[in-house]
C-alpha cells in the first residue's frame, strides 16, 4: 500500500514538473516574441508564477513534510508576493524612463499624468 502511494505521488510530481517547465518555456518564448517591455512583462510575471509553482509543487510531492518540502512551500509563498511587485516596478520605471509603447498601442490614459 505504501509503495502504491509513493508511485502515485511520483506520477503526480512528474506531471506537475512537466506543466511547470512547459509554462516556463512559454514565458521565455513570450519574452522573445512580444513587441515591447510592457507586453513582455505580461509573459514573464504571470507565466513565471505558475511555472515556478509547478516545479515547487513537484518538489513538495516528492519530499513531503521534510525540511526541503517546507522550504519549497516558503519559496512559493515568496514568489506569489514578490513577482507582481517586481513586474509593477519594472513597468513603472520603464514608463518614467520614457520607454515608448509599441506600434498598435490603441490608448494611453496615463500620458501626462505622471507624478513629478
Amino acid at each position: 500500500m505504501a509503495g502504491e502511494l509513493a508511485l502515485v505521488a511520483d506520477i503526480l510530481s512528474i506531471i506537475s514538473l512537466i506543466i511547470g517547465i512547459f509554462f516556463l518555456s512559454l514565458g521565455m518564448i513570450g519574452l522573445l516574441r512580444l513587441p515591447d517591455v510592457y507586453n513582455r512583462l505580461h509573459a514573464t510575471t504571470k507565466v513565471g508564477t505558475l511555472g515556478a509553482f509547478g516545479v515547487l509543487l513537484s518538489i513538495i510531492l516528492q519530499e513531503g513534510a521534510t525540511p526541503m518540502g517546507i522550504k519549497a512551500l516558503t519559496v512559493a509563498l515568496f514568489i506569489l508576493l514578490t513577482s507582481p511587485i517586481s513586474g509593477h516596478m519594472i513597468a513603472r520605471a520603464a514608463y518614467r524612463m520614457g520607454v515608448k509603447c509599441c506600434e498598435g498601442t490603441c490608448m494611453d490614459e496615463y500620458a501626462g499624468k505622471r507624478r513629478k
Partner: protein
Amino acid sequence: MKRRLITYMALPVVWCLVSGYVTIGSLFLGLIFGMIVVEPFSKLYRLDEVVHPTGDWLAKIPKKIKYFYVLIKEIIKANIVVAKIVLSPTINIKPGIIAVPIRAKTNIGITGIANTITLTPGTLTVDISDDQSILYVHSIDATNPQGIRDSIRDDLEKYVLEAFE
C-alpha cells in the same frame, strides 16, 4: 498592542519556514535571531508604535480562503491567455494603458488589488494616481476599456475588499 510584539511573534515562524525545521528549538532560535536583526532598527520599523489590529481579522479567514481560491483560478486563466497569445503564428495584439478607479482605501487593500490585477489575465499595474483613487493598468487587449474596468470591479475588487478591508 505594540508593533514589537507582533514582529516577535511573526519572525520565529518565518525562520522556521525558511530553515525548514518546525520545532520548538527552531522557534526559539528564530526569536533570538529576530531580536538581533530587528532591535538595532527599532526606529526604522517603528516598533514602539501602538497598533490596533482590527478585531474581525479572524472572522475574515473564510473570506481570505475564498480570495486565494479566486486568485489561483485567475492565475491559471491568465497563463492560458498568455499561452494562446505566445503560441499564435502571428502576434496580433492591441495593448494600451487604462485608468481604473478603485474603491479600496487602506494601504493593504490597495496593495492587494494592485497585485491581484497583475496576476490576472491580460492586465498589469503600472502606477497609482496621487490621491490613490485611480490605478493605471496596462492591458494586452485594450479594445474594450469599459469592459476591463467592469471586470476588475466586479470579479476581483469585491473579493479583495471582503478579505482585507
